[in-house]
């Protein structure tokens, strides 16, 4: 699913590993989300949105196939 995780992360100068640690997931999971290979669970999506101070809708775009 298209998302702005990478943009938000780099804006804060965070490494994937740092974000992964904050979210309690592996670095590879963050990488997979950023590359649209993995759609996170609702709790993880909410945690990411809360972490960056945006809404889930602002972070994830399900309008494109």
């Amino acid at each position, binding site marked *: 699913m298209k998302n702005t995780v990478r943009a938000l992360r780099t804006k804060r100068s965070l490494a994937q590993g740092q974000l992964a640690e904050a*979210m*309690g*997931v*592996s670095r*590879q*999971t963050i990488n*997979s989300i950023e590359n649209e290979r*993995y759609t*996170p*669970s609702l*709790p*993880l999506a909410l*945690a990411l949105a809360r972490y960056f101070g945006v809404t889930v809708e602002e972070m994830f775009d399900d309008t494109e196939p």
Partner: protein
Amino acid sequence: MTPNPSQQFTKSKWFLPAFCLALGLVFLAACWIGGHPGEGAYSLGVMVVAGLAVLLGGRSETIRGLRGDGRDERFAQIDLRATALAGLAVLVALIVVVMIRLARGEDPGGYGWLLALSGVSYVLAVLLLRWRG
């Protein structure tokens, strides 16, 4: 995202090595009871080596995921799919073996029971998960 207490043990790096050791001890006990302690000791040795390989296997995501300490929701999904694929492979193999034995006019024997068990357990699992979900 914090694991609950029941998940904390399975997310420990000691989970799979401990499981390997426990399984090795069960093999040893079974072989010992069956009068083949040597085979049991060999099986235990194999399981200990496998457990140590996983424990000391480095920091790759696959090893850490299998071991437990690198297991997150994505790896849990991978694990679920891999388990389903492994189950499917066993199921297909059982169907093939049962069909071959039937075609030869032989009794499917234990293979038929295993096939029936897999079908029944699948239906029961669907019912249980549907009820819980």
